[in-house]
């Protein structure tokens, strides 16, 4: 299985990378880890004339905590960097756990968080938990940069608002006072399986009342989505099994799944109900897991 010919650049700086992107426009693709792009190129689904590698941009690999800003994750951090990051383990173990349950160890050592977001597969495991945690992403181009909520990045399956001359450089999980968050997914195998449905929740609980709740659903709509009505149903109410079950039902009705080889739309809707309930119980009772 061979790759078609393409031209390759490995710029030394972010500004040089942006200039190179400007020069080639839509003919070029950004190469981060490559696990998505190379398999697509091998399968003939993608044939960029130019690949612009980010391998020399070491700054984009950092995961750090910036007081007043939050946890900053460089787009080139690999999935295993997220799994092993002490900062994430301490503050948002849920993100490390979501990364840990993706693909295989070999792929987690190559694939990057930025690549996972830019590839915009509806079943991707990182978007739901990052959306639930209110993460923002920074897009940098030669005309300047913009920051937006991650949930606004996606426009459809494998489609984002990222322009041809923009590079996603970092993800920020803002400073906040959440009490718990988690991502759980249903896959057809325990390892290396895409999510049939993935549910992330983030909650703030005080004295038995849900102050704030965010629910993000993966693999049950053309893009990762928030279950806003279910969130609204939880907000300000006392925790009870009935309340959580109702939130699951509402989230299930909000989801817009399709039928495919991994499961029917009806099955997915029911999974949304069950997994929303389970994820809420987990985040309320166990914290960031």
């Amino acid at each position, binding site marked *: 299985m061979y790759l078609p010919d393409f031209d390759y650049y490995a710029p030394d700086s972010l500004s040089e990378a942006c200039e190179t992107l400007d020069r080639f426009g839509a003919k070029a693709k950004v190469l981060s880890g490559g696990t998505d792009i*190379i398999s697509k190129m*091998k399968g003939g689904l993608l044939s960029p004339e130019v690949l612009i590698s980010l391998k020399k941009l070491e700054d984009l690999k950092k995961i750090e905590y910036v007081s007043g800003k939050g946890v900053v994750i460089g787009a080139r951090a690999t999935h295993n960097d997220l799994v092993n990051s002490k900062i994430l383990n301490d503050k948002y173990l849920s993100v490390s756990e979501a990364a840990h349950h993706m*693909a295989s160890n070999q792929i987690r050592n190559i694939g990057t968080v930025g690549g996972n977001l830019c590839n915009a597969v509806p079943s991707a495991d990182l978007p739901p938990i990052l959306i639930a945690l209110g993460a923002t992403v920074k897009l940098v181009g030669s005309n300047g940069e913009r920051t937006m909520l991650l949930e606004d990045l996606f426009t459809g399956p494998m489609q984002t608002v990222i322009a041809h001359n923009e590079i996603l450089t970092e993800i920020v999980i803002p400073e906040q006072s959440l009490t718990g968050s988690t991502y759980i997914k249903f896959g057809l195998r325990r390892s290396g399986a895409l999510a049939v449905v993935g549910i992330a929740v983030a909650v703030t609980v005080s004295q038995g009342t849900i102050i704030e709740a965010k629910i993000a659903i993966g693999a049950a709509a053309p893009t990762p989505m928030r279950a806003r009505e279910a969130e609204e149903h939880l907000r300000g109410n006392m925790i009870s099994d009935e309340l959580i079950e109702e939130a699951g039902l509402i989230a299930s009705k909000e989801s817009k799944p399709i039928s495919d080889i991994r499961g029917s739309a009806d099955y997915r809707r029911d999974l949304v109900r069950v997994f929303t309930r389970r994820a809420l119980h987990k985040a309320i009772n166990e914290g960031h897991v």
Partner: protein
Amino acid sequence: MAQVITDQQGIKHYMITINVNGDDYTRVVKANTVLVNVLRDELDLTGTKKGCELGNCGSCTILLEGKPVDSCMILAIEADGRSITTIEGIADSAELDKVQESFINNGAIQCGYCTPGMILSAKALLTRNPHPNEHEVREAIAGNLCRCTGYVNIVKAVLKVAEEPNDKGVISNE
């Protein structure tokens, strides 16, 4: 950036140097050359196998800076300047590595096609965590498919190595 030579068709070739099993190799590759093909075709290190070539099966597992990766998913030029260990590099001279010995002793090799990748994944795990439990072993080899389905003995072979007290363990127990 690696030195670039442009041929008469206008295709660029890049001079890269990779360290494989302790030795530096300089080779000329195209941008679209995949790392596994350099190892097998240019360096004759055919212990690294090609299976699915899409990052699913793990036959092409190598250690890149000590971490297991699928060498079918990495461009050779992306590995320029980095260190690689292949299955040929884990034994010390004539002596097999203890993971290799354990695979033989526990019947963990059937057709043998997944074995190099399995051993490298196991090796990376044991370097990081000398005494893993069964769950950790299964997780570490989850990206290596054995179509003979010989997983029981493979897990057993890795656990046997993990049972052996290593030197550090003996000292700390005293």
